[in-house]
Structures are given as C-alpha cells and as structure tokens.
C-alpha cells in the first residue's frame, strides 16, 4: 500500500450522531487499478444505453446475404485484420479498410471516427481487434464507440478479443462474433458452397428443360397418333366408297357381258346348226353306224350284223341282209 493507490474497501458505514461523524469500519481492502470504479461506470453506461434501446434485439439489422462491399475497422498492423482477410478469402467483395487505433490513448475516438468514415461506403462493417487484457479492450466499452456503431448506416459485426470478452460494442452491434475469424465467416457465404449451389442450379434448369421437352414430345407423339388414326379412318372411308363404285360398275359390266355372250351363243348355235350333219340328215340322208364307228364301205360290216341308221329325226336298228361291195349307187 502506498499513497495515491486506488483500493476497493469492503465494510460497514456507521453514523455517530452526537459528533456528526461518519465511520467506515473496513472488513477488507484490496488493491485495484481503478477497474472497480470503471466497472461501476460501465454498468451505469450499459443501463443507460439499454434504456435508450441501443441493445434492443428488434433494432438489430439483418446482415446482407451477399455483401458487395465490406468495411473493416481495426488496426492495419493487427493480426485481427489478417485473420479477417484470410477468412474472407476470394469472396468477391470490395474491402474498405478504415484504420483505427484499437488500444491506448485516443483509441475510442479513433474507432468512432473510423466507423463514421465508412458511411455510404459499405453494406457490412466488421469492427474488430484481437485478444488482449481487459485494459486493452476497454476502449470498446466506451459510449462514443457504442453510439458510433449505432449510427452506422450498415449492419455491424463486432468481434473484440476472445470468446469470453464481451464489450459494450458487442451489445450494440447487429451481430457479435467471438473472434475476428468468426466475424469474417459470418460476413460472407462459403464460396465453395455457393459455387456448388450454382452448379446444382444449372443441373436443375437442365432437368426442368428436359422435362419440358419430354412433355412436348409426348404431346407431339399423341397428336401424331391421333392424326394418323384420323387419316386412317379417312383412308378407309375413301377406299370403301371406291370399292362400292367399282363393284357397281363391275355388276353393270358383267350383266352387259352376259347379254352379249348369250346373243353370241345363239348366233353360233345357228351357224353350227347350218354346218353340222343334222341339217343334211333333215334333207333325207342317214348315217350308218356299227357300234361307235361310222360305216363308210359295204365291207365295213358282215351280213347278219346289226347296224344303226341315224336319220333326221330318230334312228333305225337294222340287220344287214347282203353286202354289195362293187355296186355303184347313183344318187
């Protein structure tokens, strides 16, 4: 203990009325780097800001899904900036560095000014610094930084220190990340996932178009078939008509031909009659037959043999009395 030290004292306060004295009976005393006082101040500040609605969940803005321009408020020399840049990787966003002192004298104003300088320049802001002592991170507990974050025109991700360090900046920010690396991960979508999704989108489009084509093909097929059926019916109807017509003509032609045949037959019969033996027989001649063969000479038969004489009408069965071979008959 020495003079001028900040201490924390636990004890009882009593008032001695007759002398109007206030007594502090200390039960414990602890050296303190002024943090106790500042913690009290911090609690008061948190209460005030909370009452003003700066921490209200309903006023927190949603982070853009695909930021085009990312503002970063941090020290250009810090490891935090390198962590963030490495994690953002090749994601195609513009990056605007707004340098700030993130510890020591004047850090609060520097951070606030850097935040305000990003107005109109980005659609997402990361304010960050790496881990450090409570003292080092204290500037992120200041009112001026809290109000600057609140006043930003883009959603702010705050990432100060490590997992366990929670500052006023974290309360005001639209999102809190445990570390700068986590903030960067939160800020941009995974590039590989995005590319994969894009590839899948292409596949989906191809598949959809394919389905559309197939449907059109089916429809075409269906129509073609309907058309073919209709044509077949038409064809069949035409054929039937033609068949009817032809058969009518055929009937007519056949009838005519039959008539012609009949008259021709009669004519031929007449002519045949004229040249055949019947007409001769009718003029008084006769045909002599023995069995099936004609008798031309008297020697063709023997006396006593039965022969047949075919006349113009009817026939005679005769018996040969005598064969006169050498006799000339005059007609």
């Amino acid at each position, binding site marked *: 203990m020495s003079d001028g030290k900040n201490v924390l004292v636990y004890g009882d306060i009593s008032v001695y009325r007759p002398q109007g004295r206030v007594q502090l009976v200390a039960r414990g005393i602890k050296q303190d780097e002024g943090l106790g006082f500042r913690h009290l101040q911090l609690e008061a500040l948190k209460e005030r800001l909370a009452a003003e609605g700066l921490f209200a969940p309903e006023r927190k803005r949603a982070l853009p899904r695909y930021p*085009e321009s990312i503002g970063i408020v941090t020290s250009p020399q810090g490891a935090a900036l390198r962590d963030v840049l490495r994690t953002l990787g090749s994601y195609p966003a513009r990056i605007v*560095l707004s340098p700030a002192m993130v510890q020591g004298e004047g850090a609060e104003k520097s951070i606030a000014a850097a935040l305000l300088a990003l107005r109109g320049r980005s659609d997402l802001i990361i304010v960050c610094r790496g881990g450090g002592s409570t003292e080092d991170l204290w500037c992120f507990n200041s009112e001026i930084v809290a109000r600057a974050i609140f006043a930003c025109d883009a959603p702010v991700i705050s990432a100060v220190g490590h997992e366990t360090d929670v500052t006023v900046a974290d309360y005001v920010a639209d999102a809190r990340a445990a570390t700068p690396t986590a903030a960067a991960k939160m800020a941009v979508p995974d590039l590989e996932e995005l*590319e994969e999704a894009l590839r899948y989108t292409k596949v989906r489009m191809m598949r959809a178009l394919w389905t559309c084509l197939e449907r059109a093909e089916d429809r075409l097929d269906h129509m073609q078939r309907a058309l073919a059926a209709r044509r077949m019916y038409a064809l069949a109807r035409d054929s039937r008509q033609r068949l009817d017509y032809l058969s009518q003509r055929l009937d007519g032609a056949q009838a005519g031909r039959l008539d012609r045949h009949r008259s021709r037959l009669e004519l031929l019969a007449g002519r045949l009659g004229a040249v055949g033996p019947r007409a001769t027989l009718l003029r008084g001649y006769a045909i002599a037959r023995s069995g099936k063969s004609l008798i031309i000479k008297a020697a063709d038969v023997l006396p006593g043999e039965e022969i047949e004489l075919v006349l113009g009408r009817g026939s005679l069965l005769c018996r040969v009395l005598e064969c006169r071979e050498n006799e000339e008959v005059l007609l």
Partner: protein
Amino acid sequence: MKEEETSLEEALDDLEQIVELLEEGKMSLEESLELYEKGMKLAGLCQSRLESAEKRIECLTGELPPDLI
C-alpha cells in the same frame, strides 16, 4: 453498394426465380427455352463473378500495409 451492374444477390435471386418457374413447367416450350437460356447466362455471370478473385482492398486513410497489397 453503388454498383452499376446488378448485384450478386439480385442475380442469385433472379436465378432462383427462373429455376422455380422452369420447374413449375407451366410454360410453353419456347418460353421455357428462352428462360433456360436466360438462366444459364445468369448462372455463368454469377460464376464468373465468384471467380473474379482479385482482391480489391482500399484504405480510407494512409497506406495499406505492404503485406496486404
């Protein structure tokens, strides 16, 4: 923010809409084809946008540390 070209987000949203329309399959073949071509073009645009990996870092005050350039 002040991009003249359509933002990646807009392009991706448009693309999603096109895919959904295509998958609905209520359009004629011609319309589908047209939409498909538009979608493919958009997908290509997004892809080339994602692949344009050149770092674009600017510094509002002072110089960028040399290791970041």
